């Protein structure tokens, strides 16, 4: 009898907590097109697998009337569950409770689940929906953020960390997502900025809406802070689950191997890339033509589109694809695309995901803005990331591979394991036009017909050097292959590299050109 009563009491207590900030607040949350914290968690996790902890945690702030305020679960929901049957740790800020504001106990709940995730070597998913620091708790809120950032950093490269921005995430709070591996945003719901429109207006006199300043589209297209754009929370949740299907649960194990499915037969790999190196095409078609089931999960699709990155599978094993995109800015390397590729390469290397690189680029983007924006330092990140990566690296040169761009894109010289080139490849210090103009300047300017002479010299250079055979004759290219042999050779290259073992000299850590 007594037990029954106690169980009933527990149920009542739980029911109360499950309501979060109460029915009115939930109605408001829904009116914004947002789910509640617990609904979001359950939409991501396998059905019935969520176990919540610290439901009854309370704050102990006393100032500014906080001693009279009861904040259910202190505005954040934490727990563990599974995704595709694999355990994950998860937290979700509850906007219905004091605007999801972060106080000391709120942060302690988050750091508790972060510690769990790191200790158990399982992925961490954080759902951010918070007005920011709980001002009433003063410096304790700041301490809370700091403890979270520290753990994000220490866990980086050990367990996957995923941030989901489903509401405001402003001020210092933005640095937790920024320190994690992947940031998901939803149109019209996600808002991220360091200083909001109000402050910008009072201090600088510039007027801008929240959406234009730090909405989902801005962070996917312009700032590059976010990796995945969705139109609804539901779409976002399915993207998260798809991402998790590709990545391993920590840096000691490999990603789950699935059944090896052939690419869609409708892709004709010989018909994708035009022979003329100045004509554009969509390099993602090449990726789909070789990937298992023609399935390619693109990352940062809207940012620096001249570089394509994402996951796919080859023979059932996850690989990271990196490819120049000729249909966008001719596929050049520039500040943003270098940054995008380098970070992804380091992610793959940290989590033992082999890298497959498709090369077709004319070089670096010329321009004052690029030079002044530090294209030297940013471009160096690609060299650094590829050189440092010890995962299997297989490179396929499709067409142009000129100059510094050739070196940077996973060349033999940066220790690619296999470098293949299509017969359409042009591996040279620069394109025939540029090279001929420099090498034969005298002949051209002193000729009776300079244009005619230029054309002749360009053709001469093209015949001699705009091909894969010069590089192949030095062993920089392992094999010149037919496009139709690409998948077979990629599979073989990865199979051979399965137990690749490379030891780098001992160091505390390198100093990448951040």
């Amino acid at each position: 009898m007594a037990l029954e009563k106690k169980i009933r009491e527990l149920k009542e207590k739980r029911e109360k907590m499950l309501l979060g900030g109460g029915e009115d607040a939930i109605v408001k949350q829904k009116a914004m097109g947002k789910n509640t914290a617990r609904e979001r968690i359950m939409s991501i996790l396998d059905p019935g697998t969520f176990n919540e902890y610290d439901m009854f945690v309370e704050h102990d702030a006393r100032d500014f009337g906080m001693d009279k305020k009861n904040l259910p679960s202190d505005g954040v929901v934490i727990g563990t569950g599974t995704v595709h049957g694999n355990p994950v740790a998860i937290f979700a800020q509850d906007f219905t409770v004091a605007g999801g504001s972060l106080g000391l106990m709120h942060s302690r709940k988050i750091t508790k689940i972060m510690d769990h995730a790191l200790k158990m070597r399982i992925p961490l998913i954080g759902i951010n929906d918070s007005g920011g620091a709980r001002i009433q708790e003063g410096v304790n809120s700041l301490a809370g953020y700091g403890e979270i950032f520290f753990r994000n950093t220490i866990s980086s490269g050990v367990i996957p960390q995923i941030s989901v921005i489903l509401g405001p995430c402003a001020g210092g709070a933005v640095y937790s997502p920024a320190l994690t591996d992947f940031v998901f945003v939803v149109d019209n719901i996600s808002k991220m900025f360091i200083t909001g429109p109000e402050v910008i207006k009072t201090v600088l006199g510039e007027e801008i809406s929240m959406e234009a300043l730090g909405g989902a589209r801005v962070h996917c297209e312009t700032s590059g802070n976010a990796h995945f754009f969705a139109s609804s929370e539901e779409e976002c949740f399915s993207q998260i689950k798809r991402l998790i299907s590709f990545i391993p649960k920590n840096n000691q194990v490999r990603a789950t191997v699935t059944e090896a499915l052939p690419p869609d037969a409708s892709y004709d790999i010989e018909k994708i890339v035009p022979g003329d190196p100045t004509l554009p095409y969509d390099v993602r078609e090449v990726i789909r033509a070789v990937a298992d089931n023609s399935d390619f999960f693109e990352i940062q699709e809207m940012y620096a589109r001249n570089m394509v990155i994402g996951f796919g599978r080859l023979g059932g094993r996850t690989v990271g694809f990196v490819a120049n995109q000729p249909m966008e800015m001719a596929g050049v390397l520039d500040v943003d695309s270098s940054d995008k590729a380098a970070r992804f390469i380091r992610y793959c290397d940290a989590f033992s995901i082999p890298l497959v690189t498709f090369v077709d680029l004319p070089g670096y983007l010329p321009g004052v803005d690029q030079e002044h924006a530090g294209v030297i330092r940013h471009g160096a990140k690609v060299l650094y990331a590829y050189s440092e990566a010890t995962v299997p690296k297989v490179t396929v040169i499709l067409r142009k591979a000129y100059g510094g761009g050739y070196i940077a894109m996973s060349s033999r010289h940066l220790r690619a394991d296999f470098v293949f080139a299509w017969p359409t490849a042009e591996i040279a210090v620069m394109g025939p036009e540029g090279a001929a103009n420099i090498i034969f300047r005298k002949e051209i300017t002193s000729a009776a017909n300079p244009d005619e002479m230029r054309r002749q010299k360009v053709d001469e250079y093209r015949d001699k050097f705009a091909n894969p055979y010069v590089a192949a004759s030095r062993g920089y290219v392992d094999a010149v292959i037919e496009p139709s042999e690409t998948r077979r050779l990629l599979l073989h290259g990865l199979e051979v590299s399965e137990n690749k073992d490379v030891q780098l000299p001992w160091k505390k850590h390198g100093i990448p050109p951040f």
Partner: protein
Amino acid sequence: MDKRETGKLIIDHTSYSTTFSRRFASRKPYEPPVPGRIQSFIPGTIVEVLVKVGDTVREGDVIVILEAMKMKNRLISHLDGRVVAVNTAPGNRVTKGAVLVEIA
């Protein structure tokens, strides 16, 4: 959503057909700095203008005091010369790069 400019990108004398990124399409041509221009290096509010048209100034003279982020910044002349234009007044809010005073 995705209507972006297409065109030719020239790299090392070769012309490539491609789509331009928005950032590239909207880039501003480089302008070398003009030493006689006193410009706001940060958005803010003008506190004081210490010169008027016709004044003679020397290199290092304080021309304008610009308040931004709670700091009062002294904008100084980089050359000896004469003030030919004053485009602002105390209390004005200015954007980054606004030409406040011109010295020739």
